[in-house]
C-alpha cells in the first residue's frame, strides 16, 4: 500500500502512480560529463536542424523545379517526374501476424509509385484496434525503396513469414504477397512485396 505524501501536491487517488513514477530513477552514463567537455574542446558542435536560410534555399530550388516541370507539361513536353508524383499511392493493410509474435496485430503500410514500384514500406504494431497506424503505435520496421535486410543479433534464429494474396501495392487487384523475415523473438529484419504471378522462381522482391 502507498502512503499519501502531502508534498506531492496531488490528490491521494494518484499516490500509487506518483510513487511508481518517482521510482523511475534513471541515470546518465558516468563518463558523460568529461565526454562533453572533450568534444567541445575539440571544436565539436551540437547537431542542429538546417538553418532557416538553407531551408529557404531548398524550398526555392524545389519551387524552381516545379515551375520548370509545369511549364514543360503545359507546352506538351514529357516530364516523367510528374507522372511518378501523380501516381504515388499509399496502402495500409491490417491486421496480420507479420512478425510471428502476439497474434494478428501487425499492419503494413506501402507507398508505391505507378501502382508497382515500392517507395517505402513500414510494418507497425496495431494497439488501439483502429486498423491503421496512429501516433504512439510501435513501428517495427521501415525501409526505403530497395529491400533491406537488417543485421540479426548474434545467435538469432530467423523465421520467414509469407502472406498471399492481397492488394498490398494499391494496384486495385489482390495479386501481391508480402514476405517478412523476423527473428524468433519478433524483431522484423526484412519485409518486401512479391507478385503472385511468377513467385517464387520468376520474381523479384520489391
Amino acid at each position, binding site marked *: 500500500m502507498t502512503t499519501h505524501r502531502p*508534498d506531492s*501536491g*496531488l*490528490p491521494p487517488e*494518484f499516490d500509487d*502512480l*506518483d510513487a*511508481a*513514477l*518517482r*521510482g*523511475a*530513477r*534513471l*541515470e*546518465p*552514463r558516468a563518463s*558523460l*560529463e568529461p*565526454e*562533453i*567537455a572533450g*568534444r*567541445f*574542446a575539440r571544436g*565539436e*558542435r*551540437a*547537431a*542542429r*536542424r538546417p538553418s532557416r536560410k538553407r531551408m529557404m534555399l531548398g524550398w526555392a530550388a524545389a519551387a524552381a523545379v516545379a515551375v520548370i516541370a509545369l511549364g514543360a507539361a503545359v507546352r506538351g513536353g514529357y516530364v516523367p517526374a510528374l507522372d511518378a508524383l501523380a501516381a504515388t499511392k499509399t496502402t495500409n493493410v491490417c491486421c496480420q501476424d507479420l512478425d510471428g509474435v502476439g497474434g494478428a496485430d501487425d499492419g503494413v503500410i506501402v507507398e508505391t509509385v505507378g501502382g508497382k514500384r515500392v517507395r517505402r514500406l*513500414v510494418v507497425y*504494431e496495431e*494497439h488501439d484496434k483502429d486498423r491503421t497506424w496512429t501516433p*504512439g503505435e*510501435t*513501428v*517495427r520496421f*521501415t525501409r526505403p525503396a530497395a529491400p533491406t535486410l537488417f543485421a540479426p543479433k548474434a545467435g538469432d534464429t530467423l523465421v520467414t513469414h509469407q502472406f498471399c494474396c492481397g492488394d498490398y501495392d494499391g494496384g486495385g487487384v489482390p495479386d501481391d504477397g508480402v514476405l517478412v523475415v523476423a527473428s524468433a523473438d519478433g*524483431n522484423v529484419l526484412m519485409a518486401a512485396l512479391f507478385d503472385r504471378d511468377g513467385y517464387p522462381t520468376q520474381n523479384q522482391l520489391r
Partner: protein
Amino acid sequence: MVLRDIVPPASPQIRPTDPSTDERCRVWYDAHGRAIYRYLRFHLESADAADDLTADVFLRVLEAGHRYDPAKADARTWIFGIARNALRDHFRRLRVRRHVTVDALRDLAGDAPSPEERLLRAEEIAQLLAAVRTLGARDQELIALRYGSELPFAEIGRVLGLGEAAVRTRLWRALARLRAKLTEERS
C-alpha cells in the same frame, strides 16, 4: 522530505570570463545534467538516445553560454529551454519510433536485491514509460518535467509559461489519462 531537498539548490552563474571549458562544463553539468537527462529519458525510448541528446544539449549550452543573461532567466529555466528545442529537433530528424526492449533500461538505478527483482522492476518501469509515451505531447512534457527532472510545480510553470495552479491541474489530468492507458493495457 520535501521535493526541494532533492533538487540542486541554486543555479550557478556562469560568465564568459570563466576559466576553462572543462570547468564550465563541470559546473553546468553537476547542477543540471541529471535533471536534463531524466527529462529527456522520459521522452526517449533508449538510454543511449538520452545520453546522446544530453551531450547535445550541453554542447549547445557551452556554445551559447556567453549569451546567457542571469537577469533575464534562471539558469535552469534557460537550460530547459535549450533541452526542449533539442528534443524537438531530435524528433524532427527521427520521424519514426523504434521497438525497444527492457534491456534498454540499463540506466535504471535500483536497490532491488536480486536480478529477478531488478528485471521485474525494469519491466514495470518500461511499461510505465511506454504508456507515458503514448500520451499527448503536453501530457508527456508535464510528466517528464515533474517526474523525470523532479522540478517543483512553480519551476515547471516557468519553463512552460504557465501558472503553478494550471500546472497542478494539468498534471492531475495527465495522470488520470496515464492511469486510463495503463488500465486499458492491463485489461
